[in-house]
């Protein structure tokens, strides 16, 4: 079974534990500037929204790469950047409609979410359950459950 990162912005408090965990996993540093997941604060709307790669099936970054440096991990479904092959041309950053693949000047390569090989550090670090790692076919399950709870099939019990 494949799993997906599932993000529920309503639960996010903007603590950035996910960004630190991502940076630690990939750079051995807490510097959130190196994180592959970003939490956006829409201040006046009182919303915090974590955002990262959704691992498109037909991944535009992968298709655009001229050196075939982005590969599919068949187990996790993640599209993974192969550092030795990446030449840092940044064409993928133009191709991606969502901006979730970005250049890292200090390495001369691009980076994107690779699902940490199947155990995403961001989901583990999230204290509120805003980021979870769930059955890829059932990211809507919790929302369904909430709506299911509101249905009333037996008016007599109300």
């Amino acid at each position, binding site marked *: 079974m494949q799993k997906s990162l599932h993000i529920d912005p309503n639960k996010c*408090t*903007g*603590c*950035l*534990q996910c960004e*630190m*965990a991502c*940076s*630690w996993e990939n*750079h*051995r*540093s*807490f*510097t*959130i*500037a*190196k994180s592959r997941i970003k939490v956006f604060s829409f*201040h*006046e*709307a*009182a*919303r*915090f929204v974590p955002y990262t790669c959704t691992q498109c099936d037909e991944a535009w970054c992968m298709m655009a790469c001229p050196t075939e440096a982005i590969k599919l991990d068949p187990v996790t479904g993640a599209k993974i950047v192969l550092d030795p092959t990446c030449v840092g041309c940044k064409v993928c950053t133009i191709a991606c409609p969502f901006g979730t693949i970005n250049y890292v000047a*200090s390495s001369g390569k691009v980076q994107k979410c690779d699902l940490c090989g199947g155990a995403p550090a961001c989901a583990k*670090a999230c*204290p*509120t359950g805003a980021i979870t790692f769930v059955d890829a076919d059932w990211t809507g399950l919790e929302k369904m459950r909430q709506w299911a709870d509101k249905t009333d099939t037996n008016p007599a019990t109300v």
Partner: protein
Amino acid sequence: MAWTKKVLRVNLTAGTCTTEPLNQQWAQDYLGQRGLATKYLCSEIDPKVDPLAEGNKLIFVTGPLTGTMAATGGRYSVVTKGPLTGAIACSNSGGYFGAELKFAGWDMVIFEGRSAKPVYLLIIDGKAELLDASHLWGKTTWHTEETIKKAHQDPQIRVASIGRAGESGVMYAAIVNDLHRAAGRSGVGAVMGSKNLKAVAVRGTLTDAYQVANPEAFFTAVDAGKAVLAANGVTGVGLPTYGTQVLMNIINELGALPSYNHREAQFEGANAIGGEAMHEKRPTDGKPNLVKNGACFGCTIACGRISRMDPNHFSVKDKPQYHGASGGVEYEAAWALGAANGVSDLEALTYANFLCNEDGYDPISFGATVGAAMELYDLGILTEAEVGLKLTWGSAEALVKLAEWTAVGEGFGKIIGLGSKRLCAKYGRPELSMTVKGQEFPAYDGRGLQGMGLEYATSNRGACHVRGYMVSPEVLGIPVKMEPQATEGKPAMLKAFQDLTAVVDSAGICLFTTFAWGLQDIQPQIQAACEGDWSEERLLLVGERIWNLEREFNLGAGLSKKDDTLPPRLLTEAIKTGPQKGAVCHLDKMLPEYYEVRGWSAEGVPTAATRTRLSL
């Protein structure tokens, strides 16, 4: 090492930025943040210096756990000599600014001198430069933050700035970062304004600036700490749900909620301004005041209040700029803006709080000063002609107007900006100022809670609740339950709390963790992050050393035993109603014993033996 080992020294007079290595012996002796900056300040300035003169220094400082995954590891402090008190000032803030400073590779920034014209400091990793801020002078903190981010085309820059209150010399002006987090108390923003320093902007992208010493042990300790916070009733449920406002009804029911400038110890409007009220749908527009809870950097508690006002409220009816969500009232602010002066209009409190953030001034000192002014008005000492409005108890209109005037130093706002002590002295009634060492009380009655009375009298930065939070034992039963009216054992407990708090503040984490964490939860995190042996005993010794160094600074500044006292109202006027009826603060019973457990002389001076024991 969890320190970056780098200090940035900014001479505002000369316009220079220089790098120097951190004094690592001092880091070993004082840990970081509050303690470390206090050591620097004490070593570099004459404690008798005029706080607003060129000779004072202003230090922004992080701790070893700042910018790490330790829960709440995002704190920084601003340390200086405070204009409100003439004592040492150390104001602690959350948000994202502190961690960013660390990511840029700096443990601390020391500002000295005074710039001839308004400037702001821009730090991008190892590069620091002073830039012209003429276009920002006269602007709010919100405008300043937005303008700086736009100017440098970098929304990821973090900004700490002063608003118009800091520029115009409001004695309790704050430094505001990330829109609504603040180094709030003692007037650190006024010192910044006196130096013509408008803002500090920072962006940090370095991966090698610092490191935890033992990552494996660090994550084990940090994960364990997070689990304790999540499982605790206060940090896991109470604070995220109600924020610190969870206390409003609790303290009111206990009869220790000072109101009407401490004339009363309960407030009939408490229910309307407390944490529960923020959740209730307003009859006017059907929406609650509270929109969401928010966290500071790295915080797994998330007590922050994010509020949205009723757009039809009189204070903001024609001001759409306040109709979006922003920082809502925390307990201390709600108390000071509300109970302290009898105002029970939550929307008016929220608006005043927005202004405190927007123009950078401390809602505790502001609200309490309004309370004192209302008493002077009630007594006929202040008149409508003098103030420019009717200053009657409970007037939301007066609160709102005074908040607007104080923010920009207009009209009677100029007088309110002086603080309660100077206000009451000016009108010949100094005894009506509810202050210690010139700083206004926060939201607990020092008669209703004897330990808090002693805490206020002895706190090194003047009346303050976050130097030794005796509410924990006296109300919440943490770590043990102590009766509010008891005096026995309070001095020793207070000393333990003060020393522990100094450790927490110096580590770079939030004091609110201590609702759930004891030293046994904190020590392993510090131990794993920092090189060397950081036993619990050593940490408490560090805390005690910090406390004594602050005390010595204050003694050097001219403060003495005579300043370790409370206003006569708390010592002689008994609480009139409620569960604590009849209570005065028995400071006379507790203070001598406090000096004794501190190892101080009867005059409140650290003895030679104490100084030796603490290597001072």
